[in-house]
C-alpha cells in the first residue's frame, strides 16, 4: 500500500506535461555540479505505443466524438455547422500548435515565465526524433514528438468544447478568428501556467546536488536548486493537483462558453419555440466515443504505461458509470423519467469530474465523485440556467465548467491517503524513491481553489475581451433571417440530410 500511495501523484501540480529536453541547457548547467551524467535514456517502446494510441483516442474524442455529441443536440438546420466548426477548430489550432503554441506552452518565457512560455521552439525548432520529454518518473522519458502530439490533441479539443455554448448562432468566419485568438491568448498561457515544469529528474538532481554540496559549493547548489524550482508555471508552483486537465481543459472552456453565450445572447426563439435535439442517437454515439477516447486523455496523462496507469483507467471507467446512473436517477425522481440525454449528460459530467482526480483518487472515492457531480450539474443545467435565462445552448458551462470545478475540488479531498487516495509525491526530499510528501487537507484545498479561481478569471475576462473584439471586427452573429434558415445553408451552402 505504501508504495502506491507515494507513487501516483504528480509532483506539485504537474498534471500532464512537464517537458524537459534531455539536453536542455539549464539542466546541463546543473549537471556540472552534479555527478557524471548517466547515459541518455532510451524511450520504452511500450510507452511510445501507448502514448500514440492515446493521442489517436483523443483525436477520436474530437472528431467524430465531440462533433456528434454536439451535433446531435442542435436542430437539423445547424448540424453541419456544428461539424464544420469542430473540424475547423481542430485543424486551425493544430497548425498554430506546431507554429508557436507548443513553444508558448512548454518553453521558458523569461520574465513572463510565470504566465507564458517563449518562442524558442517556434516552428518546432530544435525538435527532432532524438529529443526527449520527461514523464513523472525519474529516468523515464518519451520522445519529444510523442509529447508534442499528445499535448496537441488537448490543445485542439479544448477550444472545440466552447462551441457547444454558442451553437446555432455563431458565424463560421467569426468562429475562425475567435479560435485563433483564444488558443493564443487563453489556452497556450494557461497550459504553461499549469503544466510547465522541469521534470522529476531536474528536481531530483538539483536536490541531490544540494544535499551533497558542502562549503562554498553549497550556495551555488542552492541557487541552482532554486532556479530549477522556479522554472515552472505559476499554477504549478502553487501546488494544485490536476491529473489530466480539469482546469486547463474543462473549467477553461466552460467559462469561456458561458461568457460567449452571454455576449451572443440567446438564440432566436429560445424559450418560446421547442428546440429538441435533432438526433439523440448521434448525441449518444458521441457520448460513447467521448468515453472511449477519454481513456487516451486521462490514462495518457500518466505519460507512460507503468503500473500506476491502471489507477486513472479504472477511476475513469467507474466514476463515469456512477455519474451516468446518478444523473438518470435524479432526473427520474425530479422529472419523472430517466432520459437518454440525461445518461449522456451524466456520462460526460462524470468524465469531466474524474479528469483532474483520476490519478489520485481511490476506486471507491471515484464512485462517490461520480455520484455527486451529476446532481450538481443537473441543478445548474435546469434550475440555475432556467432562472438566469442565459442560453448556453448545449450546457457547456453547466457540464464542463461546473463539473470541472467539482472535480478540481474533489481531487483535493480524494487524494487523501486516509480516504484511499494516492497521496502527493515528493520529488525532492528523497529523489528517485517516490516517497509521498505530507498531505494537509486545508492547504491542498486552498491550492485547488486558487488554480480554479485563476482559470475562471483569466479565461473569463480574456474570453470576454476576445468575443467583443471579434464582434466589433466582423460580427459574431448571422442576420436573423440567416439564423432562422440555419447555418448549414447560410454558412456552408449544404443540407445535412437528403433522405
Amino acid at each position: 500500500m505504501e508504495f502506491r500511495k507515494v507513487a501516483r501523484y504528480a509532483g506539485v501540480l504537474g498534471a500532464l506535461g512537464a517537458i524537459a529536453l534531455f539536453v536542455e541547457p539549464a539542466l546541463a548547467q546543473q549537471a556540472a555540479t552534479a555527478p557524471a551524467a548517466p547515459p541518455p535514456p532510451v524511450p520504452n517502446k511500450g510507452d511510445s505505443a501507448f502514448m500514440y494510441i492515446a493521442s489517436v483516442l483523443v483525436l477520436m474524442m474530437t472528431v467524430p466524438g465531440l462533433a456528434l455529441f454536439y451535433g446531435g443536440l442542435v436542430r437539423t438546420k445547424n448540424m453541419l455547422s456544428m461539424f464544420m466548426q469542430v473540424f475547423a477548430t481542430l485543424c486551425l489550432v493544430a497548425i498554430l500548435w506546431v507554429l508557436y503554441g507548443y513553444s508558448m506552452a512548454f518553453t521558458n518565457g523569461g520574465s513572463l515565465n510565470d504566465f507564458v512560455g517563449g518562442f524558442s521552439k517556434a516552428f518546432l525548432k530544435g525538435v527532432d526524433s532524438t529529443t526527449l520529454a520527461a514523464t513523472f518518473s525519474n529516468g523515464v522519458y518519451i520522445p519529444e514528438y510523442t509529447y508534442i502530439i499528445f499535448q496537441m490533441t488537448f490543445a485542439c479539443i479544448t477550444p472545440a468544447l466552447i462551441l457547444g455554448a454558442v451553437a446555432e448562432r455563431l458565424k463560421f468566419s467569426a468562429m475562425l478568428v475567435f479560435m485563433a485568438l483564444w488558443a493564443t491568448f487563453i489556452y497556450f498561457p494557461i497550459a504553461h501556467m499549469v503544466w510547465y515544469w522541469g521534470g522529476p529528474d531536474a528536481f531530483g538532481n538539483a536536490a541531490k546536488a544540494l544535499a551533497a554540496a558542502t562549503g562554498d559549493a553549497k550556495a551555488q547548489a542552492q541557487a541552482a536548486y532554486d532556479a530549477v524550482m522556479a522554472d515552472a508555471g505559476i499554477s504549478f508552483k502553487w501546488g494544485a493537483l490536476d491529473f489530466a486537465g480539469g482546469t486547463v481543459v474543462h473549467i477553461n472552456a466552460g467559462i469561456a462558453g458561458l461568457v460567449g453565450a452571454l455576449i451572443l445572447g440567446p438564440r432566436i426563439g429560445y424559450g418560446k419555440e421547442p428546440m429538441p435535439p435533432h438526433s439523440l442517437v448521434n448525441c449518444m454515439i458521441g457520448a460513447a466515443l467521448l468515453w472511449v477516447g477519454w481513456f487516451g486523455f486521462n490514462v495518457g496523462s500518466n505519460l507512460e504505461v507503468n503500473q500506476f496507469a491502471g489507477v486513472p483507467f479504472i477511476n475513469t471507467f467507474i466514476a463515469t458509470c456512477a455519474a451516468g446512473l446518478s444523473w438518470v436517477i435524479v432526473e427520474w425522481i425530479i422529472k419523472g423519467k430517466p432520459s437518454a440525454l440525461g445518461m449522456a449528460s451524466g456520462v460526460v459530467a462524470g468524465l469531466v469530474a474524474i479528469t483532474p482526480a483520476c490519478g489520485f483518487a481511490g476506486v471507491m472515492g471515484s464512485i462517490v465523485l461520480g455520484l455527486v457531480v451529476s446532481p450538481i450539474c443537473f441543478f445548474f443545467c435546469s434550475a440555475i440556467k432556467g432562472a438566469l435565462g442565459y442560453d448556453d445552448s448545449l450546457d457547456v458551462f453547466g457540464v464542463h465548467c461546473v463539473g470541472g470545478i467539482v472535480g478540481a475540488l474533489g481531487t483535493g479531498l480524494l487524494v487523501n491517503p486516509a480516504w484511499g487516495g494516492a497521496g502527493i509525491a515528493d520529488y525532492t526530499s528523497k529523489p528517485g524513491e517516490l516517497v509521498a510528501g505530507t498531505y494537509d487537507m486545508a492547504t491542498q484545498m486552498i491550492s485547488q481553489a486558487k488554480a480554479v479561481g485563476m482559470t475562471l478569471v483569466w479565461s473569463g475576462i480574456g474570453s470576454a475581451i476576445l468575443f467583443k473584439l471579434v464582434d466589433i471586427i466582423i460580427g459574431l452573429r448571422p442576420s436573423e433571417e440567416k439564423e432562422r434558415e440555419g447555418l448549414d445553408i447560410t454558412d456552408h451552402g449544404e443540407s445535412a440530410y437528403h433522405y
Partner: protein
Amino acid sequence: MKLITAVIKPFKLEEVRSALTDLGLQGMTVTEVKGYGRQKGHTEIYRGAEYAVSFLPKIKIEVVVPGAQVDKALAAIQRAAKTGQIGDGKIFVSPIEHTVRIRTGESDDDAL
C-alpha cells in the same frame, strides 16, 4: 367521383388497405402526417426543458372512388380503423371533378 381522406392511427394502415382492396379499390395515396385533436400528446424533456408535444403521428389515406362506391368505402375504412379509443381519426369526403391516368390519358372513372 369523390376523394375520401382518412386520418388514422399508423398501425391501422395495413388493415385499412386490405379492407379497401377487398372492395376492389386498387389505388390509394398515403402520407405521414401529425394530428392534433382530443387525444392528448405527451411531454418530452431535454435536460430539464420540457416540451409539450401536442401533435401525434397519424397516417392520412387519400383514395378517389367512383360515386357509387363511396358508402361502401366509408364503412370499410371505419370498420378497419376503429379501436374505440380516442384518436381513432376522421374521414372526410370531398368532390373530385376530373381524374386523369397519366400513363394512358384515360380519364374520370376509367382512370381509377
